[in-house]
């Protein structure tokens, strides 16, 4: 590949250094349990970013790790924990005991967070909804405001638009210009890309532009929205990437067991993040046998769509 059409390709280190300064509002985990950008989150932790606002519906354990590492001052999420094992202990320590630091929580629901990003993506100040009426979330989240409908007699909730600084999205494949194919459950990924000022695409594979152009319906992130493209195979582990690798359930459960106390989390952080120089090193640490057990054994290719004329 030539330099001329590869201006956005960057290493993870470069992409985070350039596009995720301290104080940023960052979308991570937009596809819920699928394709969580763990490699990007770990690089943010290694580079010692501070005062981040994390935005995501449910983050599985990535938000918990970044909170434990002291990178975060605010969380805007519907749910923070460990999807298959239970609570997130770093999140609890931060909220209950201000360890390692106090964080502000802005409690959303999945629908209100999706609507906040949708409003951002649409370029309007809010989206209306019925959800949260009567709940304490409505009372305590200043981004949710009740209002009288201008077209009928109903009362609704206005969900204030979010315009994050950067969305970090793992995808199956992209070209060097950032045009990205992603498939499977998408959560809020598409609206997150459109609402954010910048997008970092983390791709399992970098492919030729012709491959992406062969299926424009699957190009859910057009390259002009993308600031950097990082080729990082295995970048979502222990989360799954449909068609590439499965979910490492045991890793989530081990994390749960090992991070109950702050000392355990510190050991975990050192072993899996701070003393790990690269994703390649990380994957060696996960181990060949374990990665092999997560490989796709039974591929299921979709039928091609004919774009001919």
């Amino acid at each position, binding site marked *: 590949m030539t330099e001329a059409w590869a201006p956005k390709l960057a290493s993870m280190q470069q992409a985070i250094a350039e596009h995720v300064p301290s104080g940023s509002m960052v979308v991570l985990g937009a*596809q*819920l*349990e*699928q394709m969580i950008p763990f490699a990007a989150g770990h690089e943010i932790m290694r580079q010692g970013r501070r005062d981040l606002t994390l935005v995501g*519906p*449910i983050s*599985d354990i990535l938000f918990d790790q970044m909170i434990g590492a002291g990178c975060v001052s605010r969380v805007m*999420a*519907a*749910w*923070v*924990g460990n*999807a*298959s094992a239970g*609570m*997130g202990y770093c*999140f*609890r320590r931060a*909220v*209950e005991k201000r360890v390692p630091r106090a964080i502000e929580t802005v*409690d*959303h*629901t*999945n*629908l*209100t967070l*999706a*609507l906040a990003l*949708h409003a951002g993506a649409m370029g309007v100040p809010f989206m209306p*909804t*019925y*959800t*949260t*009426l*009567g*709940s*304490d*979330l409505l009372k305590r989240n200043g981004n949710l405001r*009740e209002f009288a409908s201008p077209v009928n007699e*109903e*009362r*609704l909730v206005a969900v204030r638009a979010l315009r994050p600084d950067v969305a970090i999205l793992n995808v199956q494949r992209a070209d060097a210009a950032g045009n990205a194919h992603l*498939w*499977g*459950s*998408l*959560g*809020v990924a*598409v*609206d997150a890309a459109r609402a954010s000022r910048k997008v970092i695409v983390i791709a399992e594979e970098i492919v030729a532009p012709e491959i992406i152009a062969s299926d424009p319906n699957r190009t859910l992130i057009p390259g002009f929205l993308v600031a950097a493209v990082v080729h990082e195979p295995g970048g979502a582990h222990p*989360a*799954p990437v*449909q*068609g590439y690798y*499965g*979910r490492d*359930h045991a890793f*989530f459960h081990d994390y749960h067991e090992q991070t109950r106390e702050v000392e355990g989390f510190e050991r975990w952080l050192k072993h899996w993040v701070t003393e790990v120089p690269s994703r390649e090193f990380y994957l060696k640490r996960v181990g060949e046998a374990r990665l092999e057990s997560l490989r*796709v054994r039974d591929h*299921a290719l979709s039928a091609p769509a004919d774009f001919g004329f």
Partner: protein
Amino acid sequence: MVAAAAREIRDSELVFVGMRLPMIAFGVAKRTHAPHATGLFESGVIRETPAPELLYTMGDPSNLRKATYCGDMLYVMTLLQQGRVNVGFLGAAEVDRFGNLNTTWGNRNGQQIRLPGSGGACDIASLAQRTVVLLEHSRQRLVPRVGHITSPGNGTGNGWRREQGLPLRSGPSAVITTLGVLRFGDDGEAYLASVHPGVSVEEVLSNTGWTLRVAEDLATTPEPNPAELAAIREIDPQHFWTKS
């Protein structure tokens, strides 16, 4: 508990499937009495066939392959807002006598504990035609008044949901616990509708944090039938989500 949850799903219904036990309940219903039910998952998945293997999360690759639809969360969540979803399942740390749920702030020995939060729970409780709650039966979990309304039930009683502006056809339908099944009267308050086999009414009452009303026609929850038991074992052979 799982079998009782599965029976809340009627055939051909649109079902919002929550995390953990509801994923098993949906699989059991599909394999037994509700083969035409459709499952909705907030990650952006719609399935008319149960996933072929045990799900640890709704984002597991086996839940996406051969799905009816994969795509945006909003596509799925707005079906709820349209009023199309017949029943949604939820877990909770606390439920109160009017079916309000708390999954944000817990209480352990007088100490406040920060819980993960709503996820899609508030959306389901606000917008699904019927909401079914699954939780362990204890005085700590079934409380007179939740400390924080994460997901609205009947608020303070009859008429409350309408006053708040919530959809007319929505609200709590059942609370399925480890001891029995609670349902809701016209006044919006919960009552004991059935006890599980081998459980006494006294046991339920002494483990409930308020004076729970008991139905005049109190029933015994039917035992899981062989087909339901077989389905539960087929879906969760290692008992990861189902304890017994």
